[in-house]
């Protein structure tokens, strides 16, 4: 009972609808059209999900319906793969750390499962989310790929300890020069530290081992992790002498980054940040595992990005509007188009709440002349591939996870709504039961705050009771509550 806190309850009401198919159960989704993102659309199609994965996709008459499966959907719906959010710093309790170099952090500790953000992701049909630390850092913590369901971070986690955030955009209070110095020094500091460890081990052979035994560490398991340094750009000779467990955990993640364990998400605010970012990742030998997270202005460095062959995630606006400081002329550049023309692999993502919906971003790309498939790929397949989840999510294919949206029409139409969201075979969202969406759409006043209609007034004592409870708890509703009271008062006064 202790866990039934107010926010949990709200989310529970939204998410924990009776699941027609528990994990491992079978679910059949039927739709008038299935947009698979892996070949032509299927008219009158059927998807079978078993054990969380898609076991069959095809025309209804060609796909057998298991006798014990729950069936959802119908001809009125369009089925679409769940959108993949390539990169975000939302859904956390504060996205930034004030320590410059903090690779030892794990955002597992700051993800808030009941954050409104995750709920909103479901509403927009985002079923896979790469959460990384904010960009206000030099070297940030390790991120995580999550699904927007669950009451605990463990339930949400798809890929824990995934990715490490770096930034070449100056952190608050830093100049570009100090930012770059700090970033280079982070790696230099690691090298000095590792050399120190090896030197100490050489001076006092067996010290690290004795220390490990004293600490009761499992040396065999540590040895299995490999001891020598796996980086490609530079190495510290003799690192194999030191057991892995002897590494200070403040340094270990950075070493693991060099060894290719994490994807580096490097944030670039300006074109010159791109140049700096590429220089650093090349110097550290991690170019192959680098993804640039760029803001809109960075299209000017598109040639450099293309030459390096790294994928990018466009986090800024899709449309870059620049005003010439001398001539006053404004020039608009549609950034995805530039990236596409240069042959850069890109995913769309947005921190702007007004344009965040992936369907909206894809629609915008189409408006600016991109092909429909390419535009949709940028919010499904490509981010999945960038996150190394190309075999798991991003399209509706046999063997992939059963992440399916049932939309009321073409997913790119402005009048279409995501009606049902299925994540790994579980129905986790139904718009009909989404009270907050109803509020956003129709302005329904929250329970207990609406002014009583003449029919209701004075006949519901329990209602009054609820009202008092909410007064104590929900601060943000206080304004509406007050308004309700004002209206009551005015009614008593007989208006004006």
């Amino acid at each position, binding site marked *: 009972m202790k866990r039934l806190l107010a926010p949990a309850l709200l989310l529970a009401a939204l998410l924990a609808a009776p699941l027609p198919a528990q994990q491992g159960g079978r679910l059949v989704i039927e739709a008038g059209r299935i947009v698979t993102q892996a070949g032509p659309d299927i008219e009158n199609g059927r998807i079978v999900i078993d054990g969380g994965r898609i076991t069959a996709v095809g025309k209804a008459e060609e796909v057998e319906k298991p006798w014990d499966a729950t069936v959802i959907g119908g001809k009125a719906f369009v089925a679409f793969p769940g959108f993949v959010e390539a990169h975000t710093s939302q859904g956390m309790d504060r996205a930034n750390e004030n320590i410059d170099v903090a690779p030892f952090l794990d955002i597992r500790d700051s993800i808030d499962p009941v954050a409104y953000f995750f709920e909103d992701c479901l509403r927009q049909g985002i079923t896979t989310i790469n959460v990384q630390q904010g960009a206000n850092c030099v070297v940030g913590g390790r991120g995580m790929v999550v699904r927007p369901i669950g009451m605990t971070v463990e339930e949400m986690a798809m890929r824990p300890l995934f990715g490490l955030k770096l930034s070449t955009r100056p952190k608050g209070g830093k100049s570009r020069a100090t930012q770059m110095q700090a970033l280079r020094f982070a790696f230099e500091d690691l090298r000095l530290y590792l050399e120190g460890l090896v030197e100490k081990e050489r001076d006092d052979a067996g010290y690290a081992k004795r220390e490990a035994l004293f600490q009761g560490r499992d040396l065999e398991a540590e040895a299995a992790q490999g001891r020598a340094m796996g980086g490609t750009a530079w190495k510290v000779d003799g690192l194999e002498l030191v057991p892995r467990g002897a590494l200070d955990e403040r340094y270990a993640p950075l070493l693991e980054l060099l060894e290719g364990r994490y994807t580096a998400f490097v944030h670039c605010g300006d074109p010159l940040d791109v140049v700096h970012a590429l220089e650093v990742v090349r110097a550290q030998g991690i170019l192959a595992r680098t993804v640039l997270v760029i803001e809109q202005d960075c299209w000017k460095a598109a040639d450099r990005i293309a030459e390096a062959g790294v994928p990018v995630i466009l986090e800024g606006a899709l449309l870059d*509007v620049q005003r010439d400081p001398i001539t006053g*002329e404004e020039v608009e550049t549609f950034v995805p188009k530039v990236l596409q023309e240069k042959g850069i692999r890109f995913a769309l993502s947005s921190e702007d709440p007004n344009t965040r919906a992936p369907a*909206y971003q894809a*629609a*915008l790309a189409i*408006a600016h002349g991109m092909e429909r498939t390419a535009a949709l790929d940028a919010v499904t397949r490509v981010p999945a591939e960038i996150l190394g989840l190309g075999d798991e999510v991003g399209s509706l294919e046999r063997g992939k996870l059963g992440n399916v949206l049932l939309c009321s029409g073409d997913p790119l139409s*402005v*009048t279409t709504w995501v009606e049902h969201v299925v994540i790994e075979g579980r129905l986790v969202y139904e718009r009909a039961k989404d009270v907050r969406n109803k*509020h956003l759409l129709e*302005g329904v006043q929250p329970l207990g705050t609406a002014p009583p209609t003449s029919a209701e007034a004075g006949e519901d004592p329990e209602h009054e009771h609820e009202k008092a409870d909410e007064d104590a708890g929900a601060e943000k509703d206080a304004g509406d509550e007050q308004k309700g009271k004002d209206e009551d008062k005015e009614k008593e006064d007989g208006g004006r």
Partner: protein
Amino acid sequence: MLLLIAPLLAALPPGDDDWTIQAATVHTVSGAPIENGFVRVQGGKIAAVGKGGGGATLECAAVTPGLIDLALGIDTGPLSVEQSSETAARLSASDGLDLFSYRWERALRSGITTALAQPADYDVIGGLGLVLKTGGAPTLAARLVKPEACLRGAIGAQPSNGNAIPRFQEPQTFYFRRPTTRMGVEWVFRKAFHDTLQGQGEDDPATAADHAVLRRVLAGELPLVVQAKATQDVRTAIYLKEEFGIPRLVLDHAIEAWREPELLKRSGVAVILPPFTADGRHADGFVNDSYFLPLDAARKLHEWGVPFALSAHEGAGAGARLADQAAAAQRGGLPLAAALEAVTLTPARLLGVEARVGSLEAGKDADLVLWNGPPLQPTSRIIGVLLQGRLVLDPRSK
């Protein structure tokens, strides 16, 4: 021989500003959309609109009238606020207008060809607004559509904001403005109309000039456009309308007008909606509160028969422009035809300029927007703009 020459002649543009625009759909707004239609433009005016056509000099998927924004906000910096008096009905925004701002061109590029310029909202009665084109030669004469189109007022917290008397200072000096409360704002409004009806204080020429304007409002010659954001502001404005018999009242920035269906229907006011936000919230920097605008507010007004216009408040980025507001309103359930009307013909009617702009009809100004797909959808974009027959955004450039 003749057969050969005819298409050649048709292909040649007859004059610089003469065009034949052919579109898969012509949205006239005043009538039903025309499939495979054309709009012929001559001498800055629409010469003909019809089905079929030929000899097109410009082609596109859809053509609509130029968009009209009644809350563009280009002109309304703090410097357009008169400090000497709260009632400045005699002043006109035309005298404070910066026609050289790059922001006009930005509006034009986003399809807005006609806009209302008004004084900012820190005065209770701020002055006269004017309707003008967003492009053309940077002179008032060249751009003016209607010089005295409305009287601007504001209700709520904004006119009293910052007027509080600092502590430990003498309150009765010239340097502190009134009113300092919301009640005071309402009082200034009521006093202005009361004094006008009584003819009080008209030996002062400024007051006499103010009253002359207010009389035109009371006679229904000028619409009164009042900023009224919250429910209580909407109520106050409507009560004022009913108390003084103001025939034409337009509630601007009316975030919460949707909460008052009966009042809106009873009083016959029109509404200008502010831009939609992702969470429906509109933070108000002046009081510690935020107001709520649901996505279906426009649909509600449409169903209640309340005339309404959508506005972008100078939103420039993708997703924030006037066309995007019309798309958001459709997401809230507003039909396309009504959404289009809310950014073209309705705003024109509210300010009495529908004889010149707002729809595609022969004889009206040739202000056209060309689209690369169905208009007012996120999958489409404005690719061309004509302003009085002059091509200001060329659809052939890309």
